[in-house]
């Protein structure tokens, strides 16, 4: 018990120590030292997570929910706010994924960010992010959860706007922060509903009291959970709060890999899985989550088919995969959703790292139209990209195959209307294979572009003039902009090690949970979901599982074949399809007009309101009425008083004498 607590705290606090150390060292640290410091503390954190995991397995099944309480934050008026960690299988599972993937991404960044002038700042932020994320997943009550939730949003903002002299990056950071704060508000208000009912902030106490306090589909709880879902949707980029995620690709590529693919965006999935006792009481709220997840996974997959920015394609695929997870955990397939969360973290981080390597080879350009033929120039990156792509597309025996098909089988087995969601999921799975391999084929096959040719003859292309890949603006390479030198995986050992480890994970992680063979994650997570109706009873039949696995294989392979046909065998096909389906293409390439919709509904009315407030309330009322009125009264009064102060001594004396005479005359007249 003590070991579990000690190492859980160590796991949480090591990244914080790294962040503070890097922040203090930023003037003196030279070379790659900050990167080494950051990576070291992350490895400490990962090892601590592993020790926690082992120690937790030593405890009896009923004891595997350990509360580590540091101190009371407030204990008054019925609020029991303590600094509590809840160390249970779900938290340890998340901590392992977060700290493990983060250490590898830190290792990758040691080389990748090498020439950036903000190197120390980068690692300080990145460590702070991991600390926040661990605080979020280890939180033992709503208060700590909210703190971690908000910290994660702040870290995300800092890292998206990391190149703070790029106007597009700062705009993207603000957008992400505003939408995340909207989610924070949802989370806080949702917590209030739950606290009002159960009277406690502690997770385990609240879960225990929930069935006594709330009835089936209780109105209060439904409202609270929908608000919690708003928080989850904002953080996990679900429709309609998803527009920040593609823009978040303005951050450095390791940030995209860590925050906007592997960890932070899965916080919403974790939240729904953590709140399962509430969601099982209110199927209405759970249905909202499941439907939104299905809608998101479909919309994101269609958009990913048409994007031409390498990182944005992967960003939309992230959105789509998180849609799968949200759909799963909202439909009661908790283990399937969390399993997909883990495998997705492996292969999506890998894809982003490979994309980062390609972007470096292109000297910062992210446009797929300008890429091609990198296969021979970058064999290692190509191999990693293909492994990641196969896992994402769900080709057996890669990890994504098992996790995605488990989700779809569970959702299909749930009940009548959930089968529609499963069908949507299968359609999107087909599109996933198409867009993933469209991206890989366009970047790696075909005629080599000049950059690829140069690399084949041993020269890494470095841009003469540095430009913003989004706007084409000419940029500096000073602090606040990307550094001048680019690093590719083929030439940097740290990048190679990180990508190699993830590639192994992307291949073998799926074997942890093969239906009816090795249900390791199922067994491990059992204590957290003990007593759950769906965890115990929801189990797709053998026939359904087998059918799902075969259908998944057929869909992914035919998707890859289609992508091969369109972009490799008959290169002109894509343009012909685009012309034939022009309206559909317009819808997808413009991202279903979500940005325009939000702009018209919220941003522009908000601006208008602001303009009106400025011209009417601020100028007329405040400046004119309140401020102007007060100053003119004071000015008039002081002008009168000032006129008396002539500075002539005789005037003052004269006034004194006059006053004295007046007093004397008054008293004389009285008598």
């Amino acid at each position, binding site marked *: 018990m003590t070991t579990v607590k000690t190492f859980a705290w160590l796991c949480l606090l090591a990244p914080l120590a790294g962040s503070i150390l890097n922040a203090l060292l930023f003037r003196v640290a030279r070379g790659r030292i900050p990167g080494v410091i950051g990576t070291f503390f992350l490895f400490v954190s990962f090892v601590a997570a592993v020790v926690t995991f082992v120690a937790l397995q030593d405890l009896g099944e009923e004891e595997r929910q350990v509360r580590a309480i540091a101190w009371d934050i407030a204990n008054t008026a019925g609020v029991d706010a303590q600094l509590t960690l809840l160390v249970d299988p779900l938290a340890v599972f998340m901590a392992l994924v977060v700290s493990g993937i983060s250490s590898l991404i830190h290792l990758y960044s040691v080389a990748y960010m090498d020439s950036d002038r903000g190197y120390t700042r980068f690692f300080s932020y990145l460590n702070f992010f991991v600390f926040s994320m661990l605080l979020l997943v280890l939180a033992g009550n709503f208060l700590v959860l909210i703190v971690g939730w908000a910290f994660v949003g702040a870290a995300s903002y800092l890292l998206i706007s990391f190149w703070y002299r790029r106007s597009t990056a700062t705009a993207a950071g603000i957008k992400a922060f505003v939408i995340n704060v909207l989610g924070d508000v949802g989370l806080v208000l949702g917590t209030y509903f739950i606290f009002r009912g159960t009277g406690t902030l502690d997770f385990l106490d609240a879960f225990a009291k929930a069935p006594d306090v709330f009835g089936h589909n209780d109105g209060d709880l439904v409202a609270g959970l929908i608000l919690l879902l708003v928080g989850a949707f904002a953080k996990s980029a679900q429709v309609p709060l998803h527009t920040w995620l593609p823009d978040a690709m303005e951050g450095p590529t390791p940030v995209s890999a860590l925050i906007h693919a592997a960890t932070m965006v899965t916080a919403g999935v974790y939240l729904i899985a953590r709140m399962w006792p509430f969601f099982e009481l209110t199927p209405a709220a759970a249905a909202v989550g499941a439907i939104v997840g299905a809608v998101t996974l479909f919309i994101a997959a269609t958009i990913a088919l048409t994007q031409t920015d390498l990182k944005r394609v992967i960003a939309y695929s992230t959105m789509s995969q998180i849609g799968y997870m949200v759909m799963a955990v909202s439909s009661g397939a908790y283990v399937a959703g969390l399993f997909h969360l883990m495998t997705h973290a492996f292969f999506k981080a890998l894809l982003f790292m490979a994309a980062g390597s390609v972007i470096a080879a292109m000297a910062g350009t992210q446009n797929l139209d300008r890429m091609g033929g990198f296969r021979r120039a970058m064999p290692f990156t190509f191999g990693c990209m293909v492994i990641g792509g196969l896992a994402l597309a769900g080709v057996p025996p890669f990890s994504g195959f098992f996790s995605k098909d488990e989700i779809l089988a569970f959702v299909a087995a749930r009940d009548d209307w959930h089968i529609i969601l499963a069908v949507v999921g299968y359609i999107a799975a087909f599109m996933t294979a198409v867009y993933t391999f469209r991206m890989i084929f366009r970047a790696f096959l075909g005629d080599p572009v000049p950059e690829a040719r140069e690399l084949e003859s041993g020269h890494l292309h470095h841009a003469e003039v540095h430009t913003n890949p989004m706007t084409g603006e000419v940029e500096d390479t000073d602090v606040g902009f990307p550094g001048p030198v680019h690093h590719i995986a083929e030439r940097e050992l740290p990048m190679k090690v990180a990508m190699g480890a993830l590639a192994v994970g992307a291949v073998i992680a799926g074997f942890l949970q093969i239906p009816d063979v090795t249900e390791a994650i199922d067994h491990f997570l059992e204590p957290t979901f003990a007593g759950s109706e769906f965890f115990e009873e929801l189990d797709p039949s053998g026939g359904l599982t087998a059918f799902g696995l075969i259908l998944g294989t057929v869909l992914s392979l035919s998707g890859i074949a289609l992508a091969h046909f369109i972009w490799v065998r008959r290169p002109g096909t894509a343009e012909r399809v685009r012309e034939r389906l022009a309206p559909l293409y317009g819808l997808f390439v413009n991202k279903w007009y979500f940005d325009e919709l939000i702009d018209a509904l919220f941003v522009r009315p908000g601006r208008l309101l602001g303009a009106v407030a400025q011209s009417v309330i601020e100028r007329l009322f405040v400046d004119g009425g309140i401020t102007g009125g007060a100053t003119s009264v004071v000015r008039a009064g002081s002008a009168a008083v000032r006129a*008396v*102060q*002539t*500075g002539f001594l005789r005037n003052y004396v004269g006034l004194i*004498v006059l006053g004295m005479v007046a007093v004397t005359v008054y008293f004389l007249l009285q008598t």
Partner: protein
Amino acid sequence: MNIGWYLVVSALVFAIGAGGVLTRRNPLVILLCLELMLNAANLALVAFSRMHGNGDGQIFAIIVMVVAACEVTVGLGMIVALYRRRLPIDVDELRALHG
């Protein structure tokens, strides 16, 4: 002797002093005129003291003299300081504190 005469002299001296303070421009003369006003008050105090037959008024007069001595010290010190800084010795010119 009637107290009225003392008071008349006192009032006269006071009026002369006040007139001097009001009309003169030399700070040295203004200080002298202030002394006249204070001593006019002293005269009245001593006269009343004599009339009532106790010493309270005389004690008052002595205190007024002490105050006058202090006031003259400060006033003369200021005049010397003005002179050292080559500022005009004229109260009409020294009106930097006007509003």
